């Protein structure tokens, strides 16, 4: 039986555990039916041209989890931001872990999706927002909608500026073979509200950067996550994604952001590893004077593969979007960037900028990039730039003449190359954490305080 058939038939068993009279059930059954039609994308699909997703779609994968795995705090404490107060929503193997979480219903709703989805009190919110901006033809989004029942739920009420950042942490214990996880987050920022959210995906690390539980025949977990974000008028969101995973685990991430008038939303994606990582980041601008910021740093090694697909749809006048993605590729790693900007006919006075810079370091590393513009309005300023290259030889020489070793000089320049993406990171703790990861990844000892 193929994975597709298996998943479709799993739906019957999955249903048994859910309330089939709820409106969510309708959404789920519709999605699984659509998924049955669409199936998994193959290489002929333009959107998956450069990512061999088939490699991770193992037939053994299952959505059913066998048991709960306990993890000692020592092993995961580095996964938390630390140093500051924060709201935390922690999931282990897709299940909520109340022990390390700190949620609230005071002032704002910061809790788990399962407690909201089938609660009458929230039915208005759910029908207004849930699954309303998700691509109804995209295989993995459909799959997530069919099977997801757990994830983070955040609702910041009108004119509230959240006092602390929110951490959404997904941990793979790796204790179980062939698990396919379907986490789902729903984030709503009401008019004039403000929040900072950090979403991260980690796995327990064993020897050689693979799962500590690995046994012969072990099949690594595949996470298929979906995040729906609604940013209402005048609201302001900073969203950070950290993907620093094992060489063997894979993530498919679909994020949909719907912005209303005068809102600002930024999304930083830090991809530092994973077997195959695919990010579909979609921004829809539904109002005037909207600003969207998409930034990313990708540093890969070994056989890792990361694919960034971004879409910014300018449907209204006087909006801006700014994209900046940098990639550093070591060893045999491969990177993909596919950025798409659509400017509708009515969307005049748009300012859209897109930049993608790549450093190829590894002898067998490669990059495929496709910065795409589709423009139907004339009074716009749209530009994109894309480079692939190496470190500047004269800059390297300059540093060497000042007594810095070649290795350190390269490290410094590489660090500087990636660093300016961090400019807009407002959370100081996070900035330092990322800088440390970057310095560590490129093996440079920075002679200065971060």
């Amino acid at each position, binding site marked *: 039986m193929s994975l597709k058939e298996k998943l479709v038939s799993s739906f019957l068993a999955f249903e048994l555990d859910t309330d089939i009279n709820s409106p969510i059930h309708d959404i789920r059954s519709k999605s699984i039916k659509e998924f049955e039609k669409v199936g998994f994308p193959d290489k002929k699909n333009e959107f998956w041209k450069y990512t061999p997703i088939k490699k991770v779609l193992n037939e053994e994968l299952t959505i059913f989890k066998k048991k709960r795995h306990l993890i000692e705090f020592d092993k995961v404490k580095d996964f938390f931001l630390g140093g500051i107060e924060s709201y935390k929503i922690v999931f282990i193997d897709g299940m909520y872990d109340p022990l390390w979480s700190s949620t609230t219903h005071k002032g704002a709703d910061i809790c788990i999706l399962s407690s909201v989805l089938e609660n009458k009190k929230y039915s208005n919110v759910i029908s207004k927002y849930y699954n309303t901006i998700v691509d109804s033809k995209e295989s993995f989004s459909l799959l997530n909608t069919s099977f997801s029942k757990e994830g983070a739920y955040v609702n910041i009420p009108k004119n509230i500026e959240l006092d602390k950042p929110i951490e959404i942490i997904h941990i793979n214990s790796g204790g179980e073979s062939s698990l396919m996880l379907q986490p789902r987050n729903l984030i709503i920022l009401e008019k004039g509200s403000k929040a900072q959210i950090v979403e991260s995906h980690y796995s327990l690390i064993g020897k050689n950067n693979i799962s500590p539980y690995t046994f012969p025949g072990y099949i690594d977990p595949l996470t298929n996550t979906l995040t729906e974000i609604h940013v209402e008028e005048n609201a302001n969101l900073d969203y950070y994604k950290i993907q620093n995973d094992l060489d063997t685990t894979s993530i498919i991430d679909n994020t949909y952001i719907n912005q209303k008038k005068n809102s600002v939303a930024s999304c930083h994606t830090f991809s530092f590893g994973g077997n195959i990582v695919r990010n579909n980041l979609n921004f829809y601008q539904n109002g005037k004077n909207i600003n969207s910021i998409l930034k990313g740093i990708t540093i890969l090694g070994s056989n890792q593969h990361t694919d960034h697909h971004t879409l910014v749809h300018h449907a209204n006048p006087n909006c801006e979007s700014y994209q900046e993605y940098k990639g550093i590729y070591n060893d045999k790693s491969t990177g993909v960037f596919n950025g798409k900007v659509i400017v509708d006919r009515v969307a005049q006075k748009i300012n859209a900028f897109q930049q993608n810079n790549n450093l190829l370091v590894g002898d067998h590393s490669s990059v495929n990039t496709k910065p795409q513009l*589709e423009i139907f309005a*004339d009074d716009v300023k749209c530009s*994109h730039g894309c480079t692939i*290259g*190496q470190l500047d030889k004269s800059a390297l020489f300059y540093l060497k003449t000042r007594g810095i070793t070649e290795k350190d000089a390269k490290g410094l320049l590489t660090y500087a190359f990636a660093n300016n993406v961090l400019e807009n990171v407002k959370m100081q703790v996070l900035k330092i954490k990322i800088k440390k990861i970057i310095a560590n990844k490129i093996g440079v000892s920075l002679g200065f305080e971060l």
Partner: protein
Amino acid sequence: MAYTEEELKKELEQQEYQYGFTTKIESETFPVGLNEDIVRSISKKKNEPKWMTDWRLDAFSAWKKMEEPEWSNVTYKKPDFQAISYFSAPKTNTKYKSLDEVDPELLKTFDKLGISIEEQKKLSGVAVDIVMDSVSVATTFRETLAKDGIIFCSISEAIKDYPDLVKKYIGKVIPKKDNFYAALNSAVFSDGSFCYIPKGVKCPMELSTYFRINQAGTGQFERTLVIADEGSYVSYLEGCTAPSRDENQLHAAVVELIALDNAEIKYSTVQNWYPGNKQGKGGVFNFVTKRGLCHNNSKISWTQVETGSAVTWKYPSCILKGDNSIGEFYSIAVTNNYQQADTGTKMIHLGKNTKSTIISKGISAGKSQNSYRGLVHIGKRAENARNFSQCDSLLMGNNCGAHTFPYIEAKNKSAQIEHEATTSKIGEDQIFYCNQRGINVEKAIALIVNGFSKEVLNKLPMEFAVEAQKLLEISLEGSVG
């Protein structure tokens, strides 16, 4: 009296496609439809040797299994391949010995096109091969060229007279099963130009082909093969027009360029097929496959000015196989009314120290759609490959669209690739500035568009640059407003 934009618009609407006449020349046209017999008859009609007939049949059987591609960013009613006649030739005696024997009607046609063969012969020193309804009707300057050992003739003659050369190179750059339209062309091509420049020869004049579709209900499938032997140089021009007709006509050409070691080929095109009327009715479907192969230290340069055709779909490409080879692509694509263009290039870097430059300027006006689609591929063994790409789009009015689809694939870490794209419009301030200085709106637009496309126009040979400049003005006048 000030010249208002309204007046300009009106004038423009009355501006007809000036090459839209038909010539009353008796033609011999095959019945419509396509099957193996038609392919055989074309081959037989042209007295081709058996290997050529077999080659065509092979391509035809491959074509039958292929599906028409749909990935491009254009929409059109697919041509019915059984409703086209695959061979149409001006009905005349076999071959002309001199121009005097050519049908005077035919000569008049060329006069109207502005390419008086006589005049060209005397003044500009351009050798012309004219292909009308897919049959080569006249080739000038053959003897002068022959002195240098240059072969310049129609491809059907080449198949007969130089079978070894043709056999060696045809289908080598664009395999007959390369794509849907290339396969179709390989099966049914009726004529085209053939050019061979021997070792170390610098072709003393510009070579030129002029294509024209005359007969209604026919498709034009010509094939061009240019071979520049070691150390040689050639500059090749290509121009095209077609009568105004309500139905869509199909043009599916194949152009193969081969630059051997140290050779250089410069290939320029001014494409001005009938673009259809203001309502988007009629016009030529221009689905062309063009590709060049570079050996060591050689250079291929494509320059194109695309102003015509209802739908254009073409990607002149360079395969930089040899070390130190260079590929260039300079393009201006103008779309107006309901025209659609999906054009760009492919630069495939395989050899060491290869370089490529892409400059693409897209200008869209009216209700047209203009796309740039390009590929820069750096192979695993292509050390020190260098690419620079720049695609700029100019939008006029808000009913048109400009799109870019650049694919960049780097598999070697020593590659250096830069890609830039911008989209803009003609600013009111720019026009105002010109107006202040006594330049009217019409001239101001021409000035700005010329400046916008200067980098490409500069690459065209003199005779073409003037024509191209005029074409740009005609295609775009009054589009702003």
